[in-house]
Structure formats: C-alpha cells, structure tokens
C-alpha cells in the first residue's frame, strides 16, 4: 500500500498544517512607539477620542465590579484588558450601523451609544435595563454563545437587499468559534456576500478553557479562508490598529466587498465574571502590574500621546474626574428609578396580550395563583 507521506509527496494534494501563524497587525508598540506611516491615517482628535473612551469605559468596568461587591448589582462580566479592542472597533462605525454584543462587550455598547444608566439597570437585573434607545441599532448582550452572529448576518442581508450601506458588526469570543452557529453565520455571509464584520476578541480563554483546547488551528483569523472571506489578525491591545482594521473592513463592506473576520488578540485581566475564580485555572498572580502594563491598551496609547506631546497629566486628571462624576451621576440616576414591577414581565410577550397572559397577570396583581 501507499504511505501517506509518499502519497502527499507524489501528488502534493495533502494540505499540511501551516507552521507560520498569520502576522499580527500592530500600529503602537507597548512602549508607545508607533508605525508612522500608519499614524498618518489618524488625526490627533481621533487618537484622543479613542483614548478618552477607553479610560471612560474602564472606569465603568471598575465601578461595576465594586457595585457588584456591594450587592447593588448582579453577577457582572468585566472587560478590563479588552478596552482597546472594543473601543477601537466601535468607534470605526457609523451611528446607523448595527451592533451585536455579548455580555462582555459593554465597552463596545457604550461606545456605540448605549446610555450608562441603561447599562447599570441591565446589570441590576431590572427589566428596563433591556430598553434600547429608539434611534440606536444595538441589541442587548447575547447570552447564548455565538447565536447572534446569525442575527448580524440577517441584518446585513436586509441592508444589502434594500441597497443601503449600513454595516453590521458582531462581537464574540474565542470560545464562540467552536459553536455550529459560528460556522453557519460565516458560511451564509460568504455565500450572500454580506456587509458584516465578525469581530472576535480572542482573549485566550472561554471561562477556564484555553484557546489551544478550543481549536486545533493556531489562529482564528485563518478560518476566514474556509468561507472565501478575508481575515485579519490584529493586536487587540492596540486601539489604533483595531480602529484602522475595522474601519477598512467596514468600508469594504459598505462598498459591496463582503464580510470580514477579524481576530483581535487580547486578554481579560480579571475574572470571567464576578462569580468566577480565575486562580483555579490560571496563574492570576503572575499577571501583575508589569505584565499588565506590557499588554494594556490604555497605558500604551497614553505613552504614545505623551511622547507626541498631545496629552498631559492634567488632561488625564481632568478626564478621570469628569468620568467619575459622569458615572456617579448615571448610577444615581439608575438607582433612583423604582424597581421593576412584577407585572412588567407580561409586557411585550406578544404584540397583544393573549387571554391566558391577561389572567395570569391579573392573578399576579391580585396575589393569586397562576
């Protein structure tokens, strides 16, 4: 019989594993040094805007953890470490574009315009935390992993059918790439050539499971080729690189160039959620200040701006203060809203209230039985 290696040598039809990993697109180094040719594509205002928003959302994240610890919010999924990926990507969108986040993508949601008050109400488990502003095309966090990729696909399809240049972007994690819906969504997007950006934050873990156990492929971006789709692997801790990469994918989509899969390589600094204990599955202690600084998108961008002389300590101070005031006010506002009423659970189940729901609601309101 014929040996495998002989067969492949003779005919060259085996596709061997690739040993070279897709290159990582990066603009700013950890020490703040930047690729000047790339910087030329950005204004100082753009860079400052990205930075300011990253700082703002990090404050939100830290405050949320604190509020959870104080019992004022439910289980919370922190995103610290992933601000560059989320802010950089969301700022590359137009307000009319559609955003499909997960529970970890609060930074992207807020950047796209989700009000802080609603964010707080959501994590407080209040029903009005699910309100979406009428003029914003954003969904609340999708909980079942990878299932919302298809919604982004459908939305993009509708836009394309109507000849609009709206784009939809879907956020998901490395773990999500193992679900069947990931595949079906990318396949549909490829077949119908849709204006959708699949934005994967590869933070190295799905709860406790490291990416190497999630997939035998070395990168996520390379999976794009299975759908004849473009793939980008970008340094997810580099807000400018993410911004440029997403901007170009979004523009391509608007121009009828079809979908893109973007892998933003990043990490979460903290726990999966406030209910998670990361020390069970990784050496959280070794992720000290120095380790973080090396990876932190905020530190990196501040270094760049300071080096370029477009940022100062006093501006930093003012930003921190104004953000902290904004957050305080937003939380006060959220806390002042009355608790959701039980009867609200009966709203919006259907467009009109069906008889059994009406009776159940009335029973509830009368303190009666189902």
């Amino acid at each position: 019989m014929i040996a495998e290696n002989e067969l492949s040598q003779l005919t060259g039809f085996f596709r061997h594993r690739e040993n070279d990993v897709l290159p990582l697109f990066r603009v700013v180094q950890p020490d703040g040094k930047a690729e000047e040719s790339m910087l030329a594509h950005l204004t100082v205002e753009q860079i400052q805007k990205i930075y300011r928003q990253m700082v703002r959302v990090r404050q939100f994240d830290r405050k949320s953890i604190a509020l959870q610890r104080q019992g004022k919010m439910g289980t919370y999924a922190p995103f610290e470490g992933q601000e560059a990926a989320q802010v950089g990507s969301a700022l590359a969108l137009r307000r009319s574009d559609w955003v499909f986040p997960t529970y970890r993508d609060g930074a992207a949601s807020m950047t796209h315009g989700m009000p802080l008050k609603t964010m707080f109400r959501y994590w407080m488990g209040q029903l009005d935390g699910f309100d979406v502003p009428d003029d914003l095309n954003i969904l609340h966090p999708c909980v079942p992993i990878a299932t919302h990729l298809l919604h982004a696909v459908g939305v993009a399809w509708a836009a394309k059918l109507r000849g609009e240049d709206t784009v939809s972007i879907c956020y998901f994690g490395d773990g999500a790439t193992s679900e069947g819906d990931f595949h079906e969504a990318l396949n549909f997007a490829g077949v119908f050539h849709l204006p959708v950006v699949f934005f994967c934050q590869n933070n190295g873990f799905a709860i406790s499971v490291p990416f190497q156990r999630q997939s035998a492929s070395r990168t996520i971006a390379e999976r794009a080729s299975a759908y004849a789709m473009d793939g980008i692997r970008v340094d997810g801790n580099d807000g400018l690189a993410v911004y440029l990469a997403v901007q170009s994918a979004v523009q391509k989509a608007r121009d009828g160039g079809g979908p893109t899969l973007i892998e933003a390589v990043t990490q979460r600094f903290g726990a999966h959620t406030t209910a998670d204990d990361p020390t069970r599955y990784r050496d959280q202690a070794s992720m000290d200040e120095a380790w973080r600084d090396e990876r932190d998108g905020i530190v990196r961008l501040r270094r760049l701006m300071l080096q370029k002389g477009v940022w100062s300590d006093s501006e930093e101070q003012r930003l921190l203060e104004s953000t902290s005031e904004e957050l305080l006010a937003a939380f006060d506002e959220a806390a002042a809203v009355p608790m959701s009423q039980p009867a609200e659970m009966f709203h919006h189940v259907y467009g009109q209230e069906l008889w059994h729901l009406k009776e159940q609601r009335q029973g509830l309101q009368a303190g009666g039985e189902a």
Partner: protein
Amino acid sequence: MAEELNMVQAIAAALDAKLADDARIMILGEDVGVNGGVFRATDGLQKKYGQNRVVDTPLAESGIIGSSVGLALNGFRPVAEIQFLAFMFPGLEQVFAHVARMRSRTRGRFQLPMVIRTPYGAGIRGPELHSESLESLFVHTPGLRVVVPSNPYDAKGMLIAAMELDDPVMFLEPTRLYRAGKRSVPGGLYRVPLDEAEVLHEGDDVSIFAWGAMVPVAERAALALHEERGWTADVVDLRSLMPLDRETILRSVEKTGRAVIVHEAHKTGGLGGEVAALIAEEAIDCLRAPIMRVTGYDVPVPSFAVEDAYLPDEDRVKVGVTEAVTYE
C-alpha cells in the same frame, strides 16, 4: 375568483398573494427557489419574484432561522420554510432563545414579524424523522404563536393572517393533508383568524377535539358513531394551539359533559394533556366521564410499514369516544 385548490396549492397561493402585496415579504429555505420546494409549496415563486425574494439557502436550519431573525429585525417579513418539522431540531436554539423572546427581551423595541412554515406529521410513508408532531414544544414556548390548518381554505387564510401578524408564528402544515382533497379557495387576500377554533359538527353526547390531520379522522369517527349508535358529537378543529380557544373548548364540554382529545403526537407530554388540564381546571363539574386522549403512542414514529398503526385512526377514536359516552 375562487378556485378549487388542495392544501399545498392554497399555501402557494397565500405566499404568492403576500409576495405581490408586500415588498417586505421574503421566502427562504432549502430548495424553495429553483425547485419550488420539495412539496411545491413555493412552486413558480422564484421565477415570478426573483432570487432576492425567494431564496435558496445553504443547508443549515439554524442559519435559516437565525438569519431570518436578522432580516425581521431590519425591516423584512421573512417566511422561512423548514423542509420537515424534525429538521427544525438544529434550529431550535434560534427558535427558543431568540425568535420567541426578541420582542420581550427588547421590551417591544424590536418585534419579529416572521413565519416558520413546516410540513409535519405522519402518514406519508416518509423515512425516519419525516413524520414527527411536536406542536407541544412550541406551545410551551412563550412568545410563539402556533397554528395548524386542516383544510385548504383555512390554510390560505391563516397563512395570510400569519404573514400579517407582527409576532412570530409557527405554521405547522399537516403533510398528510397537502393533497388530500380540494376545496374552493378565494383568490386574493383574505384572513382566517389565528386564535379561533372551529366547531365543524354540533352534537350533544361528546366533544371531540382535534387539529391538523386528525380532524378528518375525528370527523369520520363521529359520523360512524352517529350511524352506528345514534350519538351526536361536537367535532372541534382547534386550529390555533397557542393561544387555545378556551371559550369554544369549555362551551362545548359544558354542553356535552364528555371530552375526547385526538392528536397524533406522542401521548405523554402532548398537547392533549394541556387541553385535558384546562377542562379539569375550569369545567370539572360538567364532566360526566373521564377525559379521554386518543393519541400517537409514546414511541419514535415507526418506519412506514407500521406507521398507520402508530397513528390514531377512526377505530381508535371510536373506542375512546365509546369509553367516554358509555362511562357510568
């Protein structure tokens, strides 16, 4: 202009009428385009309305239903065809987690005006997993409407109403009735309400509740028992499974004092239990006999050599009714 149509033609007519009427209607599914659907329910529609409105999708049910959710979020009114009910299994995640819940989880900001059509039920000598009846799964899912027509007239009118509703509708089409007979069906647009049962025959001795392909079976059994024993029965076609038409159900049982529920789904956990419980909760005093269920057995729908024995037939319905009527 009314025409004589069988059920699958009536469904095609409904789709045609709404595609013409509303530019937001879109049909998608496996083989619905060039091929016109494996049962021909979309026959000729792609030619008439183009590839963008009648779309052959890749072979992926989660993809079909999930992308329909997105289409509906963004202004379309998709009508997804799932080739057979059991092939909705890979798409159940989308149905349970998203289709049913989008309106309530977005507090009304987004609604999903979509229809999922699928042939269902046994009796067509299909291979494995071509004969399931799983209506109770959907009825148990808040946010979904669930309807089943039992004749061509209702099929067209209910499908049009479903396409015009702003809530997602599971539109279950009894495959066995697709070509079971023609009936006069009006042209153009008309609606049959989505929440009303229909009393097909009136009687005094027993109420027989059925839907879909069990309706003609129930009718035949009632007729036979009338001839053989002189009994008269209310034969009620439930048509709407979510919501149930409680008033019609209770009114009938209050009159007859006896209830027999006929469905082809497995007995345990089937919708017959819900109807029985409704009666046992709200009309117990009228009951003069046990509530009987005549149903498919609690076994996987068997291969077609014995599929007829799985299905409730006239004889089994007669046994159930007789037990109820002669109960002392």
